[in-house]
């Protein structure tokens, strides 16, 4: 089981759309895939038409009184399941903090996911925007950290900070794959930063997700764009990204 997580400290950068589309593409490849919507806003759950509700809430899942397995819902797509969001996830930091001492509390999600290894080939974690115990848990659980970046100078700084933070982990570290998201081809700065960084820096995917109104239609169609408009430019970009992030980044 390989765990991918979409993470960025900022909101509205395309984490959920990436998680939803990459999870769909993984399932379409025939891999048994689970997407865990960790964001209490429940956008990924909404996109799959699944109610953002877990019986017993986040507390039951973190404390283990409800197995993750029992909360999973099938999506409309073969091989793709979803663990829905729940509004109580907003308190997940507190729940994780109560899980035990420092190391234990940062590895709780990894521990909860372990029993699903036989059932799934790929797990996608869609993280809420923050830097918190939840995000630290996600980084410890993930094999691959997918970081969407809006092509601005500040975003690049964020990536540097994140890379440094992960490098400080003792033992197992996730592989960091950044990719540009919401790229506006009319903006010179976007194109320049995208071009420079993808060529100069390792761990930045060549595939970039354009800013297209078609992607916004996902909330109307309530389905991955890769499913309802598989030949669109946006779907092609997600497919290119998916094939790239399954490889190791160039050194």
């Amino acid at each position, binding site marked *: 089981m390989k765990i991918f997580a979409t993470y960025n400290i900022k909101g509205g950068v395309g984490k959920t759309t990436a998680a939803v589309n990459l999870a769909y593409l993984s399932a379409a490849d025939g891999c048994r895939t689970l997407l865990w919507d960790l964001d209490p806003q429940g956008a990924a759950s909404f996109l*799959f*038409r*699944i*109610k953002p509700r877990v019986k017993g809430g986040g507390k039951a899942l973190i404390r283990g009184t409800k197995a993750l397995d029992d*909360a*999973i*819902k*099938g999506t*409309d797509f*073969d091989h793709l*399941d979803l663990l829905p969001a729940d509004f109580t996830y907003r308190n997940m930091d507190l729940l994780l903090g109560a899980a035990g001492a420092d190391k234990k509390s940062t590895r709780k999600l990894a521990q909860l996911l372990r029993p699903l290894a036989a059932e799934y080939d790929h797990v996608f974690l869609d993280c809420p925007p923050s830097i918190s115990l939840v995000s630290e848990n996600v980084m410890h659980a993930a094999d691959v950290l997918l970081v969407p970046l809006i092509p601005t100078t500040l975003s690049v700084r964020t990536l540097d900070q994140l890379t440094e933070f992960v490098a400080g982990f003792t033992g197992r570290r996730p592989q960091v794959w950044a990719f540009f998201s919401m790229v506006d081809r009319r903006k010179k700065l976007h194109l320049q930063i995208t071009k420079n960084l993808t060529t100069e820096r390792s761990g930045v995917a060549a595939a970039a997700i354009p800013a297209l109104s078609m992607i916004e239609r996902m909330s109307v169609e*309530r389905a991955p764009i890769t499913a309802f408009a598989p030949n669109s430019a946006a779907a092609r970009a997600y497919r290119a990204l998916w094939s790239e992030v399954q490889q190791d980044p160039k050194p």
Partner: protein
Amino acid sequence: MTAASLRDFVADTPTGEDSPLDAVSSALSQTFAVRQEPGAAGSGTHRWTWLDTFDWRLYKAGLTLQFEQARRGGRLVLSKADGTPQAEQPVTRWPRRPGLAEDLPPGPVRDRILVLTSPRALLPIVKAVSTVTVTRLLNADGKTVARLVMDHVTVTAPTGNTAADTTAELPPRLSVAEVRGYPGQARKAADLLAGVPGIAHASQSRFIAALTALGRHPADYTSGVEAEITATMPAPVAVARLLLRLLDTLELNVPGVLRDIDTEFLHDLRVAVRRTRSAIKLLGGVLPAGLAEHFKAEFKWLGDMTTPLRDLDVQLLGFDALTGQLVAASPADLEPLRAFLAFRRAREFRRLAAALRGPRFRAITDDWRKALLEIRDVDGPRRRRPTAAALALSTTGRSFRRIAAQGAAITLDSPPESLHDLRKRAKELRYLLEFFAPLHDQVAYRKVLSDLKQLQDCLGEFQDSEVQRHEIGDLADAMMAERAAPAATLLAMGEIAAKLALSQAEARAEFAARFARFAGPAGRERVRVLLEGRS
């Protein structure tokens, strides 16, 4: 594929204006939005073949094996009778000819069925073509919460002769597939379906439904006698029924022998012939004058025709076990012998096939059936004849007394022929017990049979070892004459002959104890209880 469960249904009429399928959609629409899902997983046309041995070994073990055909190659899927998957493995193709499990590529299905089916071949039992359509059932959010899978299956019974294949259409099957996390919705859909007139819960698995539609029953072949006889039936009628049943078994195995599908067709055919000969010899007195004499000679001819091929089959089947016993020689040394046996087998097969296709064989089976049917149907109860029970009592008692006397006379100095002769008598008693099995108390029957089997095993080991030892000698002579025997092969054959002599000596040493168990006071009492009942 799927097990019959509470979410599996059948429509009682296939198609047409009043088809209950039309009502299904409107019933489900009460609760769900119903959408066709073209291209859904599992939809489209599927082809598969259910496989089993001629004697239904997989079915009897509670298993179902199917070869699912794909555009390229396919896969073998082994399931329990209730549909629970057990193992599957890809296979490039299923040969047109029935194949042995040992010829499959290594894989989990082969591992599971090899011992169970060997040495029988896997035959196509039923071929199926199914067209599956999937309908999504949506909740108010437009989310798929269950799926309705509709399956139209056409089945064919392969006969090996395409022109004669029989085909049937199964009533359409509907099943509600649960979407993970929405069990209540699937239950609701199943409840709605159950309320549609003309839709009923599926009570049979698809395999059984397919067999039923083709007019077959599972396990409709057995090599056992199992004649329908009763104690009060006139003896000639009972004997005719018995012999007709044996003739059925014999004839059922002929096509398999002629197609050389596996060695057990010939084995079962020979057993039917041997039983027939024993029945003619031991019970033929109740048949019309002259009939037994004529057919005694005919069935002897038939039995003799089959012996050379069966002997070679036995040698080839046991070849690996034989080479495994070698200590001094290497198994490779015996390969020329295997090739020699295979060459001879091909020759003997052609000879037997010609005989089975010839006029004498056809005359035997046709005339025999005609004569037996006449006895079975014409012989009225008004004639004063012994009953089946009386015949069973007299013949079985006589047979047992004869064995007891012959066996008691055997000493350590007796020639091997005395044991061979006793083996024949024991086999006759075994057949008599099996012929009249429906008339006996089953507990008493099993006790006597168990004693007899142990004696037969010992006598069999003794004689088989001797026969094989002589055969090895004869084969060595023949190979020498045909210059087909390297020295290493002859030495290895010598080692095998020595092993056989040892087995024979061991069997000889065990004889006294086995015979004492069978014919001693306790054994006699068991036979008395069998024939006369408890007093």
